[in-house]
């Protein structure tokens, strides 16, 4: 990946990420998150991980965020816009962020592989779709099926809960 593209998309992604929390309008926040996801997908594509990049767009930007936006628009959250900054919440947030950054720095400095550049990949292009499929259906078959059952339970639970409210 060209370094120019990497820096451009990283900067854009971070800018949109910041705008998710700074925007007072929930619709603007949601759309910034979508833009941030798209930039993340571009970074994945730059690393030749086409499958993950496309799934990022398909699942998060195309499905999850559309539903989020849909709910936000239906609820029409005007109160959210009027809410001002809470000083204590800001202070707490800053403290948590500082702790997180400190922890991250400590972990990275203790991780020796991060000090030197990674060796170049032997194979120029990997058939990532096939590799992901093989990994899911052989080595990680049990976790994959467990997740499937969990999702099924969750969706049945949602149907049961919403049915009860209708009565």
């Amino acid at each position, binding site marked *: 990946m060209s370094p120019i593209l990497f820096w451009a998309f990283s900067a854009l992604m971070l800018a949109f990420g910041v705008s998710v929390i700074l925007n007072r309008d929930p619709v603007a926040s949601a759309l910034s998150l979508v833009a941030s996801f798209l930039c993340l997908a571009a970074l994945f594509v730059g690393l030749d991980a086409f499958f993950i990049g496309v*799934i990022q767009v398909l699942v998060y930007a195309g*499905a999850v965020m559309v539903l989020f*936006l849909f709910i936000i628009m*239906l609820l029409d959250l005007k109160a959210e816009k009027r809410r001002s900054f809470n000083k204590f919440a800001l202070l707490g947030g800053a403290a948590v962020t500082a702790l997180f950054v400190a922890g991250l720095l400590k972990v990275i400095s203790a991780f020796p592989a991060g000090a030197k550049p990674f060796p170049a990949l032997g194979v120029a292009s990997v058939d990532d779709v096939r590799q992901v499929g093989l990994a899911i259906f052989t080595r990680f078959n049990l976790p994959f099926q467990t997740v499937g059952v969990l999702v099924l339970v969750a969706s049945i639970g949602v149907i049961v809960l919403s049915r009860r409210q209708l009565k």
Partner: protein
Amino acid sequence: MDFLNDIPWMLIAASIAKTLFLIFGVVLPIVSYTVYAERRVSALIQDRLGPNRTGFPISLFGFEKDLQLFLGGLGQPIADAVKFLLKEEFTPAHVNKFYFWLAPVLAMVPALSTLAVLPFGNYLFGQKMVVADVNVGILYVFAIASIGVYGIVLAGWSSNSKYPFLGSIRASSQMISYELSLGLSAVPVLLIIGNLNLSQAIQYQIENGWLLLPFTDGNLTLRELLLWIPVLISFIIFTISMFAETNRLPFDLPESETELVAGYHTEYSAMKFALFFLGEYAAMIAGSSVIVVLFLGGWHIPFLPINTLESSTTPAGIALGFLHITAFFAKVVGILLFFIWVRWTLPRFRFDQLMKLGWLYLFEIALVNIFITAAILALVK
């Protein structure tokens, strides 16, 4: 500045040339003439004439009527475009300005971006006729198509009035629902082909016959005959879902004029309205192209062997290249005419009927179809 040398300038130039040729040379002219065809075909079906007057100002000696060719209104799309550009661009006072201006762009851009992975020809001037030959082609198409709903949702919401909002709610629930059957109905095809790359899909169909017409390679085996049944089912589901995804009649609930004025683009005028219009037709072309690539052999012409000459820059190779591009877009135009024919034949669904069709029938049939295909693939060698 050594990283400037790493940039593949030739590749970028070739990609830009291909993109410009595809969008401005082929797709946008097809879009404007599809609108014209829509009006002429609807007139034909309803026993009217349609726009048959607007011609081109051509002249032999500079006099007004010295050369009279009957062009049957072929100048109509140009007149329409001029009208859209010159009309008053009115932005109502009650709208959310930023999103109101953003929405038409978001409706147009995804529809055109989908075309990037579609192989629309074999070789031309020694270049492969696909802008981005990625190994996740079909997933990319679905991903970008799912982004397309933002334009409609934002248009309805930012307009701040009843009808657009109802239209955009309908559009988003309809598009999310039919994305499922669209994706699932493509799975049997991908199982048969064994690859997500669209160029490989065409390569498979050249070697084994088009999926929908398996005899086009000259022989018909029992396996192909058995697989033809699930392929036909997925073709029907895929096409129906494509109608719903592109908001075409009989599923044009988001803009049904008898209930919602014009749905999500009620408040739009002039070129902003035209962008929604063009986006819808561009999405139709993209959808038809995917149908052609997955089921109808892409640019392949049946019983015409692929000549290695084509990848060269000889005149014969270039002619063959153009022939294949023409074949691809001829198939696309065929599907587009089918879209138009259906629009002026079937009445509109009711919204609950639409949801029932998507969730209770198409979704289940597509799911069962995957198992049937997998069983045939595993049992019949």
